[in-house]
């Protein structure tokens, strides 16, 4: 994604995203499959991803890049994963039952086996979570799983785990699906020849170059159709497309809308636009001038021309959003009226906020595709209401850390995650990446009430209220959600076209076949 001279683009960050998941129970085998007859076993699929060079690891609990997550899900499983609407789907957990007060959760494990034949046991689950949360660990799932009181959690029998939590947590299965929360055989310390319960078995790995895995005939979810899966790495988007066109790979991850349009029409490749993958927005810091004035935040809400941004920045590969996070996901408040640009109203609000003619620094960078383009377009739109948004291009490598504490207005993006995670990671007083400095005791209280209730309708109601507050006064302005674009050779079938990036059915190769 980066750069001049086509330096490899480390997209180090699997994404804000937690992970992924499969469709709700019963959602058929992935694949709004095109023609190609019945699924056929056999063959090797070669898939090209961008990567991280020599720094790449096979430790699934440390996986961070998309390519690392794709490899991790080939070799390992989590207790749960996210479906296409970000609701948790049971994986190694066959079912979960909370106690009445939602502080104890009993998980029944599936009958599954590791690649070396050992059965999956409750002790493996406890050991895996202990490894993630051990002192000094910087593993991504650590903050999510630290809600578990591990010393007081226990194995009831080989296939039953009882988790004791620090607080009531009605959406605890989201934590089981967190990015990196993979289950390893107890005592695993090195990953030279990793062993998991996943659909493929490890064959070989060279960091930054290539990874080979072979079918696990004994996978609990059914053996994959492919004999072999090879994942190769190239950071250059043009090289991924060329490798696909030249027949060197059958699957290319992360294409630009321009490439997609160019080659799609020629019929040389199949293009898959995975919807609801990447939310784009603005982060306004509500704890300091000038955005401590709600009128000015509302002025921006009425300023932004969402359709125009989707057209120009996503080149049509995406949809407009309505300022709150999570369009299309479970609990999303889709009853809120869709906002559109209203310059008169925006002008009036700017006046009300006493901000006419004001110059405001607007941070952006090349840290993510489209970030800079969106900032320039929004700054143009702002001129019409008498605001001067001064676009400042920051360092792309340190951008997310730079804007966490500094500045007042910044371009922002987020991968998919459940609304609950979005709230808890970014919008609570205690959130560690609260980039809008949204700190409201009553908002925190609603979140905690939502986690303490077993009443599904009550939880939905609380989430609706929280989103309404954010819609009117929040510091985030989510203007659009882009598709994630992958392409495949004509003979590849079984790729799910509906799964957002990082969900269960994204980069899921155990249901793919070659015709």
């Amino acid at each position, binding site marked *: 994604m*980066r750069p001049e*001279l*086509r*330096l*490899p683009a*480390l997209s*180090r*960050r699997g*994404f*804000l995203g937690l992970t992924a998941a499969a469709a709700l129970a019963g959602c058929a085998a992935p694949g709004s499959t095109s023609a190609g007859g019945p699924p056929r076993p056999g063959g090797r699929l*070669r898939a*090209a991803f961008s990567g*991280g*060079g*020599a*720094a*790449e*690891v096979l430790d699934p609990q440390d996986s*961070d890049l998309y390519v690392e997550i794709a490899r991790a899900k080939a070799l390992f499983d989590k207790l749960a994963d996210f479906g296409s609407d970000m609701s948790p789907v049971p994986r190694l957990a066959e079912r979960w039952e909370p106690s009445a007060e939602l502080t104890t959760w009993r998980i029944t494990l599936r009958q599954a086996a590791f690649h070396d034949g050992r059965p999956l046991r409750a002790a493996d689950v406890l050991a895996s979570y202990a490894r993630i949360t051990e002192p*000094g*660990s*910087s593993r*991504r799932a*650590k*903050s999510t799983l630290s809600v578990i009181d591990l010393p007081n959690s226990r194995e009831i029998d080989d296939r039953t785990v009882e988790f004791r939590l620090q607080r009531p947590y009605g959406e605890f299965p989201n934590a089981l699906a967190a990015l990196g929360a993979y289950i390893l055989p107890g005592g695993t310390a090195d990953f030279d020849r990793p062993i998991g319960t996943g659909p493929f078995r490890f064959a070989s790995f*060279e*960091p*930054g*170059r*290539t990874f080979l895995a072979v079918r696990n005939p004994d996978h609990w979810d059914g053996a994959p159709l492919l004999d072999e899966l*090879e994942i*190769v*790495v*190239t*950071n*250059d988007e*043009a*090289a991924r497309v*060329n*490798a696909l*066109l*030249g027949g*060197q*790979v059958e699957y290319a991850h992360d294409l630009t809308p321009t490439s997609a349009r160019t080659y799609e029409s020629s019929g040389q490749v199949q293009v898959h636009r995975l919807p609801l993958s990447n939310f784009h927005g603005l982060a306004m810091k509500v704890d300091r001038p000038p955005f401590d004035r709600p009128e000015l935040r509302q002025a921006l809400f009425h300023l932004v021309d969402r359709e125009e941004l989707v057209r120009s920045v996503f080149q049509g590969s995406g949809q407009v959003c309505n300022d709150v996070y999570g369009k299309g996901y479970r609990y999303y408040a889709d009853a809120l009226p869709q906002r559109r640009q209203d310059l008169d109203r925006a002008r009036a609000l700017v006046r009300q906020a006493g901000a006419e003619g004001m110059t405001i620094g607007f941070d952006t960078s090349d*840290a993510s595709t489209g970030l800079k383009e969106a900032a320039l377009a929004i700054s143009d739109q702002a001129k019409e209401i008498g605001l001067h948004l001064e676009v400042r291009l920051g*360092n792309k*490598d*340190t951008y*997310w*850390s*730079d804007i*966490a504490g500094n500045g007042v207005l910044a371009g922002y*993006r987020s991968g998919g995650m459940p609304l609950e995670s979005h709230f808890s990671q970014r919008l609570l007083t205690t959130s*560690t*990446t609260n980039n809008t400095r949204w700190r409201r005791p009553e908002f925190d209280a609603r979140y905690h009430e939502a986690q303490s209730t077993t009443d599904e309708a009550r939880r939905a109601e609380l989430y609706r209220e929280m989103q309404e507050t954010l819609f009117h006064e929040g510091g985030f302005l989510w203007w659009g959600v882009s598709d994630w674009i992958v392409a495949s050779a004509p003979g590849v079938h079984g790729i799910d076209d509906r799964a957002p990036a990082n969900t269960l059915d994204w980069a899921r190769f155990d249901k793919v076949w070659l015709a």
Partner: protein
Amino acid sequence: MTIPRYLARRVLLGAVQTLLVVVGVFALTEALPGDAAVMIAGDNPDPAIIAALRERLGLDEPAWQRLGEWLVAALHGDLGRSLVGPRSVVDIIASAAGPTLLLAALTLALLVPLSVGLGVLSARREGSRLDRLVTGTTLSLYSAPEFAMGVLVVTVFAVQLRWFPPTAVGTSLLSNPAVLVLPVFVLLLRPICSLSRLIRAGMIDAQRSGYVHHVRRLGLSPVRVHFAHALPNAAAPAIQQLARTTDWLIGGVIVVEAIFVVPGLGTTLAEAVAARDLPVIQGLAVVFATATVLVNLAADIAARVLSPTAEVGR
């Protein structure tokens, strides 16, 4: 100055130069915004996680102390471990050096005969249509950046004509030599232009010089005049240029490696800088600096031997 004394001076100088490069690279990397901990945290910049990472990676120590420890270890041949991955720096560099060295060696092996032949040919027919054609072509090719040539060559010869594979992705260079064709072709284009131009100019000067007129008058065959007498003098500046070309090749040829997905030193350097992986950057700086010093030393000595009258840089 005698050759051995000259050599000793240059080696000493080279060691000092390498040290300066390494310290300079360290300082520059330190000056970049962010460190490996910030890079690893990425878009999840939880301050507690960043602090834990800094402590684990030793990034909380003062810079001079880290540099000192690194230098002491490096003198003992230990270049340390990557900050962001599990591998040692030596291991990373060793595996990336293979593809780059292979590309560089192949390019050089083809470059020298081709550019000498082309340069001598156009010098012998100075002003002819052939000379003008060669001059025109080399000048225009020389101004085309590798990036543009690479994209063009892949589009035409790989994607459209399908003569050669478009990238080296997922295969080793040796087991599938066809993947080498296009990268070497792109790597050759510009150095051929500059070297053959230099050889041509040198040959024309030499042909007009007194000593060549003299050996001609002695009745030596034109071939001997050209290759035994004119060429060595003409080659001296070309060898200096060849040294620079070699630096450039060993330096990874980042662009070509990226376009053709060759996992070499250039790619490794770009990734290490993006990850602020200081030990890897430092290790590569040592490799590049040493290679530059050695190649230039060899070129100076060769030029001195070929053309003893020419003043040699020291």
